[in-house]
């Protein structure tokens, strides 16, 4: 294993420094005492009036947790307020934070790659425009920094300039990109790349696929076919099937995950675009319903803008007031 829990070395200055600083600052603020902002909202008032509970509920709803999960959490909190198990705003905040972290902890499992897989296959799947190709660039960077050799497969043979886009990420990381002409068979490209990676003894092969909506039956079948071809290459091939989800997505993210999971079986999730104001609250329903590990979060468009998923930091950022 390549020590994925290790901290990556300080990255060179880049355009996204500002963005990352913001997020990191957010996380830090979180650790220092999560709800400073929320606290100030309620001031020194030590009474728990129902308005506070409603404010919390609204906060969760606007973070995309969804009405069901929010109601469950708040019902529980309200019950404990009634039983006087929670009596102060501070307690309330602590309890809420703990409840949220409890939901996410089971899915906070880092990706561990067995050594000597040669290659370990990472399949990137998801709906259109969520950040699959960009995340490949970031992952390649991460694995390279950890000393692994990486190869990319241009499995999106459909979208205009998808291959060229991946090639740019290959160049940035100085890793080989296996591709065929646009319009060729995606499964064939990935099979090619598998052969090539095995022949060269590459540690990790990351395969891009075209974005597809889970409602497009034929495209989902095509994905199944890709998986069959991978099995044909080596049914015991160690692999990770990463579903990429956009943090700005609302309740549909759950449907997406369920559908992709049913069709090809997901082993991990990446949540992208957390550098905006979206909170990605849909992961709570995901954790509940599917329990699939969330491996990474995307926090920008640059090479270094990838973080391992950390339940505490995530909940902290989620509960922080918007700036």
């Amino acid at each position, binding site marked *: 294993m390549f020590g994925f829990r290790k901290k990556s070395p300080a990255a060179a200055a880049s355009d996204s420094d500002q963005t990352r600083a913001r997020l990191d600052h957010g996380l830090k603020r979180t650790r220092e005492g999560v709800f400073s902002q929320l606290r100030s909202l309620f001031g020194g008032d030590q009474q728990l009036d129902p308005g506070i509970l409603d404010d919390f509920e609204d906060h969760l*709803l*606007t973070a995309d947790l*969804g009405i*069901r999960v929010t109601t469950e959490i708040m019902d529980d909190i309200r019950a404990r307020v009634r039983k006087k198990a929670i009596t102060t705003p501070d307690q309330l905040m602590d309890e809420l934070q703990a409840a949220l972290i409890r939901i996410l902890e089971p899915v906070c499992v880092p990706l561990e790659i067995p050594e000597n897989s040669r290659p370990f296959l990472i399949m990137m799947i998801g709906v*259109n425009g969520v950040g699959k190709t960009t995340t490949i660039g970031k992952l390649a960077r991460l694995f390279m920094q950890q000393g692994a050799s990486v190869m990319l497969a241009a499995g999106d043979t459909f979208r*205009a300039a*998808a291959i060229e886009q991946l090639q740019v*990420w290959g160049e940035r990381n100085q890793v080989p990109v296996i591709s065929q002409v646009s319009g060729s068979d995606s499964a064939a490209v990935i099979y090619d790349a598998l052969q090539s990676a095995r022949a060269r003894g590459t540690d990790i092969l990351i395969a891009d696929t075209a974005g597809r909506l889970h409602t497009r039956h034929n495209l989902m079948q095509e994905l199944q076919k890709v998986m069959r071809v991978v099995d044909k290459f080596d049914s015991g091939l160690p692999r990770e099937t990463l579903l990429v989800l956009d943090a700005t997505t609302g309740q*549909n993210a759950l449907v997406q995950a369920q559908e992709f999971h049913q069709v090809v079986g997901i082993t991990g999730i990446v949540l992208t675009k957390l550098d905006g104001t979206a909170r990605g609250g849909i992961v709570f329903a995901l954790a509940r319903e599917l329990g699939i590990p969330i491996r990474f979060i995307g926090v920008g468009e640059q090479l270094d803008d990838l973080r391992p998923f950390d339940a505490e930091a995530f909940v902290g950022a989620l509960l922080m007031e918007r700036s």
Partner: protein
Amino acid sequence: MFDQLSSRFAGVVKKLRGQARLTEENIAESMREVRMALLEADVALPVVKDFIAAVKERALGQDVSSSLNPGQMVIKIVNEELVRLMGSESSGLDLSTQPPAVVLMAGLQGAGKTTTVAKLARTLKEQSHKKVMVVSCDVYRPAAIEQLRTLAGRVGVEYFPSAADQDPVAIAGAALAQARKQFIDVLLVDTAGRLHIDNTMMDEIRRLHSSLQPVETLFIIDSMMGQDAVNAARAFNEALDLTGVILTKVDGDARGGAALSVRHVIGKPIKYLGTGEKETELSVFHPDRVASRILGMGDVLSLIEEVEQKTDREKAEKFAKKLKRGKGFNLADFREQLQQMRSMGGLGGLMDKLPGMGNMPQAAMQQVNDKQFMRLEAIIDSMTPQERVNPGIINGSRKKRIANGSGTQIQDVNRLLKQFNQMQKMMKKMSKKGGMAKMMRGMGGRLPPGMGF
């Protein structure tokens, strides 16, 4: 998801049954359901709150006088209000200006801007016969320029070349100058995706906007977007004074509450919907369709429409008057209702459309098929007019005659009379107008106890 929602609205219908007037108390419950439905559809919370307030205001104090029951009426108001807020039918692009008319695309990362440029270019070229040029000012995303170049070639419009080492504002200026030279009608300008909180990037697109003076500045938004849609839309609108919105990826199954959020927050029209990845997959915006999608209740609405259209209003009113005069509900009225129900695809057809009814046991559904309707009608047909108006006179020998005449058993006649009696009681309880509709609902929405055929 759809099933759950449907039964939610079925709950609204059921809870409000028999209410003559919509009051604060009796609609509170249904407003809770509506709130949940909207939140599940990703309508932003502040928008949900405003919306519910508006619906409440409209619904309060309304008499339940139409052919709809109170629950259906609430749903109808919800839908109408939603459609109203969604704005008018697609107005298309307004390109009336000294050419070249510039159209600027803006939005978050991956929303579908570049793809939509190709779709718009294609429609403008093929349907409006415009001379179109496209240009990419996206110098950030890898191969973004190449993507637009490929798409321009595919739809066969002019492509103004740019490169990743150029300045976006300079690219735009050069493209505009070239468009003038070539007597281009429309210049479509693609831009990089950007976060609304990224000051540098928002400033850049502001500069693009002021140097291009576009006639249309379109906000491209992913229909799957959640609560954050309001924040993004507001910020883009403040920076650019948008002229319209295009909602993409509606070929998915997201309920598209973002559409309502955006519309509510910026008040600009939704102009098109992206319905697929291909250049041809662009469609005009129909507010009613998006509205019923958000509510997840297309079937409920079509049922309401059907009931409204097919119920002969005159007959209903005549009937209501008659009830008022105290003449009561007789078997002739009963037969008329049976015929009307049959013309609407029978009880089975009605039930299929009613949310929550899909789960009725198969056997129960089979019991209420058209044959039974016809049998009931046949029995009534075999009665004399006097018997129909005054069923009290139907004694043993009359029953025997009726059974023979209609090819049924005496038990069938008895059952019909018993059911009729129950209905009559129900009818007596009902006050004022709308009796016919209520009756039908009584049978169609939920079978009153003892009404199984």
